[in-house]
């Protein structure tokens, strides 16, 4: 067992883990942060997406030990308490979810898109392309794409 310390949503969290413990297992089982989902466990679906030092990664395809000493943001950390982040509010507004299983990953990927487009206009084609790492089996994606564009607009990103 190894001790890992990760700054999760701004707070330093430590736990004893095996080398093979995945980051998503550390988050869900050790820290009880169950907002990060496991949809496929084969690196395809993106339901497990979190931010590592501000960038979206698949937490099912990373070891907890690889995150030692780094910053992780999960869906629980995007807005304080029961407030909704503007991107979460946009998903609610645009019917960007049905069962909601893919949603935490979709929101984390959407926030990655926003971060990469600061100062540049965002269009629908780019949103579709950059959501390639996230699968949804309910919505047919249109509501999700609309939500990302609305969320972007409400966060001050120019939408083409």
């Amino acid at each position, binding site marked *: 067992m190894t001790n890992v310390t990760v700054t999760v949503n701004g707070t330093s969290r430590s736990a004893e883990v095996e080398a093979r413990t995945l980051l998503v297992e550390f988050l869900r089982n050790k820290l009880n942060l169950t907002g990060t989902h496991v949809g496929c466990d084969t690196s395809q679906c993106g339901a497990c997406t979190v931010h590592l030092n501000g960038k979206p990664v698949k937490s099912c395809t990373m070891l907890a030990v690889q995150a030692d000493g780094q910053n992780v943001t999960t869906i629980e950390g995007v807005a304080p308490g029961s407030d909704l982040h503007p991107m979460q509010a946009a998903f609610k507004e645009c019917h960007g979810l049905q069962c909601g299983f893919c949603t935490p990953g979709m929101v984390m990927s959407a926030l990655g898109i926003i971060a990469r487009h600061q100062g540049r206009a965002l269009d629908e084609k780019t949103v579709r392309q950059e959501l*390639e790492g996230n699968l949804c089996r309910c919505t047919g994606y249109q509501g999700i794409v609309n939500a990302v564009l609305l969320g972007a607009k409400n966060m001050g990103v120019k939408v083409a």
Partner: protein
Amino acid sequence: MYDFQYAKLTSVADTVTRRTSDDEASYLAGGMTLIPTLKQRLARPSALLDLSGIADLKGISVANGVLTIGAMTCHADVAASADVRAHIPALASLAVSIGDPQVRNRGTIGGSIANNDPSADYPAAVVGLNATVHTNARAIAADDFFKGLFETALTPGELIVKISFPIPKRAAYAKFPNPASRYAVVGVMVAETLNGIRVAVTGAGACAFRVGDMEAALAKSFSADAIKSIAVPADDLNTDMHATAEYRAHLVGVMARRAVASLAG
């Protein structure tokens, strides 16, 4: 996943020494191939030696007409690099076509070429741009690096440190992606280098290969028409659930012509 030991060392020398003392240990780069492999219990390394703490494996630089990329540089950083976009835009657009944003934030150029998946994108760039692979021990020319299916010239424990790409006069990469994984069903890099034209194909065969007939034809006349009648034999190409060998052979021609057409004109 079987359990294993984990170590993150900070120098190339220490990491190679540790690997040499343990036959069953494995290097860990972005983990985008290795971790899924471990989950499926297709490998059972005694230890993973994480390369992410080694400063010498990072970074992108340009000097004397050569663009050099550290082995641990992730695909997203290659795609976003101002140096890569200015000097070899085809390499930046290849990098941004790999997988999805999350994969590009973790997967590395060193891991991609060490793994040598027949459908990986980077091998087409390494061969097409006549790059050199620098390891802890030696420099390996692109034409000598890729040996077969998942097989490279690397000896056990040999560590890729960086890859250097001579800046071409012009180059373009055209790819027919698998719509689910984005891996190349076929990808073709066409480059006019200082030492002539190179055409390198990935996705179609056991590993990246050059098409000499197309290179000769393009040297005479750099146009899509010049290679219209050149067919690549399907005999040694891959057939799988995504495409037959004949279809891949056809796509080699189409992708090569697209790459040339995007440059000619």
